[in-house]
């Protein structure tokens, strides 16, 4: 009978221990991300590899988003705590006061390209003069990249017909010859090339080295109330980012599961994406200045605005 009692105690202890370890430390974090965006691979890797759980975080997906502004609307409504999102929607929503967020880490830099349609025989950006070029949205990072590329080539943007086309429609439009070129993020450039719908004229990395793209943001109030949680989240993000960089092939296969794109595509696309985690205040500021010029951001002092928006303490970055 004492053996039975001992066994009973052992079982109870085990159960209690089990209950204890899962309830006492796990913190719920509602996360948003774009399920078709390879730039946000770190999120997926962290989730699948258990990096979040390691940190004692219970990450809940706060909704399915197909575009940045959608995700930012969710922040606006208080539905999300943290998220992976493009710099453009994060900054516009913050500047309009529609969402109170802070940028706490980078998800990736570069990772876009200017793609031209087959049959357009131009050697460089100069050839875009008088052409029709599509961007995913007004004042997006791609819009910024295009303007930079044109400025560098000495082409007046007014001499280029810039129109907005949603990325899924870009490839068909290129193939059909309705647009001459498109500026878009991976994996679309790689897909276009694979489908013989276009060729890469120049990558964004060449135009604007180390330009930011997707970021990790946090709801300001959540940050204030749970700084430790945010710290742990970013630790997991950092670990995932490093993992990707050390295991490119495996990461590409995971990207295939994450986005649904073919492994051939994801592998090729990854060559053009830089997964980092330290946000560059300078690069973000220069982007803010561009948006101010186009009139979509009303920031009296872009530098001050950027500093108030970006928090580098979690990534140990300086105000570079």
């Amino acid at each position, binding site marked *: 009978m004492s053996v039975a009692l001992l066994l009973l105690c052992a079982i109870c202890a085990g159960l209690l221990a089990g209950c204890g370890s899962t309830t006492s430390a796990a913190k719920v974090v509602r996360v948003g991300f774009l399920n078709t965006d390879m730039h946000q691979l770190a999120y997926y890797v962290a989730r699948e590899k258990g990096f979040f759980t390691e940190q004692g975080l219970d990450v809940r997906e706060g909704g399915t988003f197909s575009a940045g*502004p959608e995700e*930012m609307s969710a922040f606006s409504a208080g539905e999300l705590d943290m998220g992976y999102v493009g710099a453009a*929607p994060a900054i*516009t929503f913050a500047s309009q006061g*529609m969402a109170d967020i802070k940028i706490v880490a980078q998800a990736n830099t570069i990772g876009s390209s200017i793609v031209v349609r087959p049959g357009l025989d131009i050697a460089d950006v100069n050839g875009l003069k008088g052409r029709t070029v599509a961007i995913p949205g*007004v*004042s997006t990072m791609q819009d910024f990249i295009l303007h930079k590329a044109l400025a560098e080539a000495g082409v007046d943007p007014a001499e280029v017909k810039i129109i907005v086309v949603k990325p899924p*429609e870009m490839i068909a439009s290129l193939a059909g010859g309705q647009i001459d070129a498109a500026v878009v993020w991976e994996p679309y450039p790689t897909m276009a090339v694979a489908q013989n719908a276009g060729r890469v004229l120049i990558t964004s990395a060449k135009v604007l080295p180390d330009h930011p793209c997707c970021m990790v943001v946090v709801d300001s109030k959540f940050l204030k109330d749970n700084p430790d949680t945010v710290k742990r989240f970013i630790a997991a993000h950092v670990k995932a980012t490093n993992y990707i960089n050390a295991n490119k092939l495996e990461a590409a296969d995971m990207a295939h599961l994450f986005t649904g794109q073919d492994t051939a595509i994801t592998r090729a696309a990854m060559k053009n994406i830089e997964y980092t985690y330290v946000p560059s205040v300078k690069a973000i500021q220069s982007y803010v200045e561009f948006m101010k010029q186009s009139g*979509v951001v009303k920031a009296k002092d872009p530098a001050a605005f950027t500093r108030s928006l970006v928090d580098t303490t979690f990534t140990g970055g300086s105000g570079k």
Partner: protein
Amino acid sequence: MNKWKIVPPLVALALWELLAGLGWLGKTPTPVQAVRGIYELIATGLPPGYHLQGHLLASLARVFSGFAVAFVIAVPLGILMGAWPLASVIVDPLVEAIRPIPPLAWAPLALIWFGLGLASAAFIVFLGAFFPILLNTVSGVKSVDPHLVEAARTLGARKRTILGRVLVPGSMPSIIIGMRIGMGIAWMTLIAAELIGVKNGYGLGYMIMTARDLARYDLLVAGMVVIGVVGFLIDWLIRLGEKRLLRWR
């Protein structure tokens, strides 16, 4: 028009201003902000440099061209189908198969077929306007008093005359109903279609999409107000035409 009709909308507006101002409606802009937004859309434009007037003209051009094509095909076809059972038997299954598909679902195909210009938006508008016009024309023809047809025959009218001088005028009230319904659907469908892609950067749907992307919800609501008002005005114009044409009622 009864002057008391204006009271409920005014009350609603006042309520909206009050609640939004207090912050009870989340970050929804107030009516005042929306009105200011309309001014900004006209003066500055969204994206900056693309003024409301340009967006409005582009959308109107698309909706009217799509609607015109729908009208020109649906009315004669409807009259034929209403007057000849055989025509109805042949065309009806096709109509009933396509009608349930929402026009917007055709957008990706439209893009491949017609590109990014006027034609693809007009095509989607066409799909929205076509079926109400067709169906109402058919029912209009079928509801023409058969005695009128017989009277015409006894006065010496042949088939073509009956078609043109009896069935067409007789079904006009129904045709106009079809037009009003068709135009209403066309306008709504167009705005949604413009969210897909516009060649020249103009369109009311594109304008409000941009407002959303740029988190300018005041301009978004302003745009919605403009869209609603324009839709109302178009319908009002049709009703005006109806009064003229159907004086005999």
